[in-house]
C-alpha cells in the first residue's frame, strides 16, 4: 500500500513537472503526453478523421451555475460538465444504443443482479493522475451518500436499496443489485467518474457541495472528458482546453479531441444566440426555435442549417387534479369537478388542433403527438395508439355525455355550461419566456372557444409557474414541455409514477389517487425489473394506452431538433438527444484553411 502510494506521488510529481514544462513551451507545442504508455487502452472511434488544432465557440443561454456534477441541476451546467467528464458506459446519441466508454466491457450475470465492469487500462484524468477502480468506488460512495444530496442518487436506488459497489482488482468493479433493473447498463450513462485525489478531502470535510464553482483554478479540477478548464471570465465566457490525456483516438490513431480550445460564451437569451451565430462569433448553434431557424436558413452565409428530425421533447396540456382537501377554494372545487371528468379531458383532447400547432408554432418542423413517446424515440412508441384527427363533433358528444350543455348568447356565441348551469371558464398557465408554448396556449384557447369554453392564457415567469404547479398548486391548467435526455422510458419515471415529484397533474401522492394511476404505477414498476426489451415494451405499451385513455396530459406536439454550424466545422452531426451538437465534440474539427475564419 505504502509503495503504491509512494509510486503514486512520484508519478504525480513527474506529471506535474511535465505539465509545467508544457506550460513553459506554450500551447503551440503538441499537446500529446510525450510518454506514450503501451498499456494505455484507447477507444478508437470510427468515422472521418479530422485535423488537430483550432478553437470552437459555442453560446450558452446564461452562465452555468457549477462545474460540479454532484450539484448541477440546470441544463447549461450539464452541457459544460458533459464535455469535461466521462461515464463508464455511454449512450451513443446518434444510435441511441450503449457503447463502451471508461469501461471497455461489461457483463451482466444471468440473474440480472450482478454487473461486472472492466475499466480501460492506463487512463488518466485531465490533470495526469491515473484512473483506477478506487476512483469508481469513491464516485459511487459519494453519489449514494445521503449527506451529499447528489441528484444522481435516485437513479442508483433499485428496489428500495442502493446499489452495492465492490472492487475486484485495480480495473474491475462489480455492481450488486437487489432487484433486476430493466434499464441495464444504460444506468451508467451520464454518471461522471470523479477524481478521488481531488475530491476525497472536501468530501471528508463535508464540503463537496461548495466546490466546483466556475472560478475554480484549473489545477484544482479534473475530469475524464475531452476538455478541461482553462479560463473563466465572469459574465462573459468559460474557456476550456484540450485534455491531453483523453482516452479516445480516431481511426488513424490520432488522439482526440481535435480542437485545442472550446469556448462557451454566455448570452442572455435565444435571440442573442442567433445574433452571435449570424455574426460569426459562434461556430455552432442548437436548440433553435423554428422561426429563428428559418431566419438563419434564409440568410445562409457560410453556415449550414440542419433539421435533425423529431426529437424527444413532448409538449402537453394538463389540468390541476390535485386533491388539497378542505383547503381547496370553492371555485377550485367546481373546476376540479370538470377536470376530474375523463370525458371532459377527452373532449379537450379531441378539440385541440394539433396540426395547426405544428404548422403555426413549428412552421411544420415538428410532429403532432398523441402519447408520451416523442417521435424521435425509435424503439418505445406504441404503434397501435390511435391518432384521432381533430373533431369538434366528437368533443361535443363527449361533453354531452358528461352532462354538459350549451346556452346561446345574444351575439350567437355559445357558452358551455356544466350540469348545474355554471359556465365553463378556466385559465391556462404558460411560461412567459417560451414563445412556442405561449403560442400553443393561444391556439388551444381558440380551439376551446369553439366548444364554448372561456379560456384565459396567463403567461408567468417559469420559476413562479413551476412553484404554482408543484408547490402551491393554485392553477387551473398549464401548458408545459419535457425534453427527455434518453429514449428509455425510465428517464421520465418521476413524471409517471404517482409518487413522483414531477407527476405534474398531482405530484408526490402517498397513494395513487385513481385506479388508472395505480395501474400505471404497477406497469412502470414491473417494467423496471423486467429483463427483456420485449417484456418491457409490452408493459410500457400498456402504460401508454392507459395514459391515452385517461388523458391526464393532453399531448400536443414535438419539435424537430434544429441546429446549425459554420461550413468550416467537420464531423458536425447533430443528434436528437441532449447535448444535440456537442455530443461528439471530441470529433469536431476545423477544416483545412479555415482556422482564421473563426477568430
Amino acid at each position, binding site marked *: 500500500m505504502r509503495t503504491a502510494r509512494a509510486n503514486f506521488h512520484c508519478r504525480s510529481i513527474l506529471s506535474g513537472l511535465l505539465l509545467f514544462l508544457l506550460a513553459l513551451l506554450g500551447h503551440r507545442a503538441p499537446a500529446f503526453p510525450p510518454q506514450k504508455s503501451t498499456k494505455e487502452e484507447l477507444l478508437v472511434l470510427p468515422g472521418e478523421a479530422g485535423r488537430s488544432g483550432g478553437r470552437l465557440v459555442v453560446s450558452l443561454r446564461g452562465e452555468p451555475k457549477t462545474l460540479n456534477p454532484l450539484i448541477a441541476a440546470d441544463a447549461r451546467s450539464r452541457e459544460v460538465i458533459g464535455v469535461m467528464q466521462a461515464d463508464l458506459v455511454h449512450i451513443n446519441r446518434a444510435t441511441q444504443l450503449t457503447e463502451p466508454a471508461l469501461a471497455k466491457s461489461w457483463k451482466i450475470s444471468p440473474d440480472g443482479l450482478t454487473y461486472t465492469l472492466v475499466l480501460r487500462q492506463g487512463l488518466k484524468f485531465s490533470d495526469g493522475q491515473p484512473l483506477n477502480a478506487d476512483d469508481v468506488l469513491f464516485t459511487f460512495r459519494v453519489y449514494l451518500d445521503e449527506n451529499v444530496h447528489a441528484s444522481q442518487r435516485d437513479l442508483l436506488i433499485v428496489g428500495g436499496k442502493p446499489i452495492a459497489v465492490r472492487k475486484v482488482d485495480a480495473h474491475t468493479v462489480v455492481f450488486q443489485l437487489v432487484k433486476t433493473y430493466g434499464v441495464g447498463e444504460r444506468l451508467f450513462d451520464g454518471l461522471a467518474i470523479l477524481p478521488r485525489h481531488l475530491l476525497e478531502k472536501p468530501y471528508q470535510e463535508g464540503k463537496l457541495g461548495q466546490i466546483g464553482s466556475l472560478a475554480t483554478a484549473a489545477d484544482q479540477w479534473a475530469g475524464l472528458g475531452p476538455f478541461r478548464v482553462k479560463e473563466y471570465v465572469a459574465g462573459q465566457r468559460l474557456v476550456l482546453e484540450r485534455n491531453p490525456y483523453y482516452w479516445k483516438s480516431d481511426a488513424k490513431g490520432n488522439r482526440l479531441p481535435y480542437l485545442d480550445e472550446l469556448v462557451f460564451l454566455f448570452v442572455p437569451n435565444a435571440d442573442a444566440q442567433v445574433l452571435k451565430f449570424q455574426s460569426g462569433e459562434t461556430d455552432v448553434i442548437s436548440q433553435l*426555435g423554428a422561426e429563428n431557424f428559418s431566419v438563419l436558413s434564409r440568410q445562409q452565409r457560410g453556415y449550414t442549417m440542419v433539421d435533425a428530425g423529431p426529437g424527444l421533447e413532448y409538449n402537453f396540456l394538463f389540468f390541476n387534479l390535485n386533491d388539497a382537501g378542505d383547503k381547496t377554494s370553492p371555485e377550485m372545487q367546481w373546476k376540479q369537478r370538470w377536470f376530474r371528468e375523463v370525458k371532459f379531458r377527452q373532449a379537450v383532447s379531441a378539440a385541440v388542433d394539433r396540426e395547426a400547432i405544428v*404548422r*403555426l408554432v413549428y412552421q411544420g418542423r415538428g410532429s403532432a403527438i398523441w402519447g408520451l413517446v416523442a417521435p424521435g424515440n425509435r424503439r418505445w412508441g406504441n404503434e397501435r395508439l390511435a391518432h384521432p384527427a381533430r373533431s369538434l363533433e366528437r368533443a361535443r358528444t363527449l361533453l354531452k355525455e358528461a352532462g354538459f350543455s350549451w346556452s346561446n348568447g345574444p351575439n350567437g356565441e355559445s357558452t358551455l355550461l356544466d350540469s348545474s348551469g355554471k359556465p365553463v371558464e378556466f385559465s391556462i398557465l404558460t411560461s412567459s419566456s417560451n414563445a412556442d408554448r405561449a403560442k400553443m396556449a393561444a391556439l388551444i384557447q381558440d380551439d376551446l372557444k369553439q366548444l364554448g369554453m372561456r379560456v384565459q*392564457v396567463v403567461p408567468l415567469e417559469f420559476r413562479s409557474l413551476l412553484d404554482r404547479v408543484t408547490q402551491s398548486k393554485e392553477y387551473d391548467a398549464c401548458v408545459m414541455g419535457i425534453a427527455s435526455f434518453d429514449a428509455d422510458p425510465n428517464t421520465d419515471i418521476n413524471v409517471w409514477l404517482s409518487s413522483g415529484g414531477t407527476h405534474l397533474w398531482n405530484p408526490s401522492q402517498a397513494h395513487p389517487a385513481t385506479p388508472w394511476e395505480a395501474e400505471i404505477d404497477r406497469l412502470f414498476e414491473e417494467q423496471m425489473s423486467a429483463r427483456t426489451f420485449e417484456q418491457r415494451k409490452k408493459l410500457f405499451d400498456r402504460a401508454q394506452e392507459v395514459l391515452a385513455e385517461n388523458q391526464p396530459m393532453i399531448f400536443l406536439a414535438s419539435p424537430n431538433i434544429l441546429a446549425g454550424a459554420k461550413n468550416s466545422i467537420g464531423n458536425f452531426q447533430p443528434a436528437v438527444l441532449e447535448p444535440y451538437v456537442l455530443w461528439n465534440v471530441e470529433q469536431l474539427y476545423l477544416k483545412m484553411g479555415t482556422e482564421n475564419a473563426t477568430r
Partner: protein
Amino acid sequence: MIVRRAFTRWLVALAVLHGIVVCAGFFAPYDPVEQDRKNPYLPPMRLHLADAHGHLHARAFVYSLKLREGSFDQYEEDTTEPHPVKFFLRGARYRLLGFLPCQMRLFGVENARIYLLGTDAYGRDQLSRLLFGGQVSLLAGLLGAGITLLIGLSVGSVAGYFGGWRDSLLMRVAELFLALPWLYLLFALRAFLPLAVGPLKAFFLIIAVIGAVGWARPARLVRGVVLSAKERDFVRAARGFGATNRYLLRRHILPQTSSVLLTQAAILIPQYVLAEMTLSFLGLGVPEPVPSWGNLLSSLQQYSVLVSYWWMYLPTVVMVPFFLGYLGLASSLQERGETYKIEGRSVGSLT
C-alpha cells in the same frame, strides 16, 4: 382667427380618425380574433388593376397568396383567379358602437380573404386588429386622462384655494407621485392581482392605474391658476359681497382653469395611449386575443419577427396621425389660451 382655424382643423381630423376606430366593425373586413390558420404571417396583399395576362380590370382586385414550394413562411401570388374588391358587403356579424347588431362591412372579397395589412402569427387580419385595437387603446387614453384631470382638478383647486397646511400636504404628496417609478409600481401591482384577469377587468384596471398615477402635474398647474385667480379683483369683490367658497370656486375660479385642463387633456391622452401600449407590449395590459395597439406590437419582441415580417411594424405607422392630431390640438389650444390671456401670464405648458 388663424389659431381658431387650425384648432378646428385638428379637431375635425381627430374626429374623423376616432370615428373610424369607433366604427371599427364597419371598416374592418373581419373579426379581430378570428384565426385563419392556413395563412400565418401573410404579407399585405397588393391591389391590382391589371392581371397576370395584362388585361385591365375596372375594379381593383387581389390575388390569394399561397405558400411557395418547399417553404414554410414564404408566400407568392396565386394568379389563377382574381378576387375583385367589393364594397358594402355582408360579412360576419358584429355590433356597431357595441350595441347595434350589424352585418354590413365596408369592403371585402367573395370566396377568398383579403388582408390589406397582412396577418399575424395566427393568421388574424392585421387591419381588423389595428382598428379594434384602437378602440381599446384610445378609450384607455381618454378615460385615463379623464380620471387624471378629475383628480388633478380637485387636488389642485383645494390646495390652491385653501392654502395653508392643506396646500403643503397635497403638494408634498404630488411631489412623491412625481418621483415614483411608475412602471415598476405597475409591475408590483400586477403581482398582487389574481392570476387570470378577464379582458374587461384588465381594461378598467389599466385605466384606473394609468389615471391614478399621473395626476400630480395637472394638480400643480391647476393650483397655480387657482392661486392667481383667487387674488383677482373680481373674486375679491365677490367675496366681499359674501359669496361662499363653493360659489366662488364654481363660478369664478374653476372656469379659469379650463384652458389649462384642455391643453393638459390634449397632451395626456396620447401619453396615456402610449402608456397602455407599453403595458400591453410588456404583457401587463389587456390579455390576448383581445387586440390593443400594444398587443399588436408585442410580437416584435422576437428577433425572428423583427427581421422577417415587416408588416408587423405597421401599427406604429398608423399611430402617427393620432399622436400628431393630439399634439397639434394641444399646441393650438395653448396658442388660443395665450390670446385670451389677460395678464400676459402663461398657463399650462407643453412639457
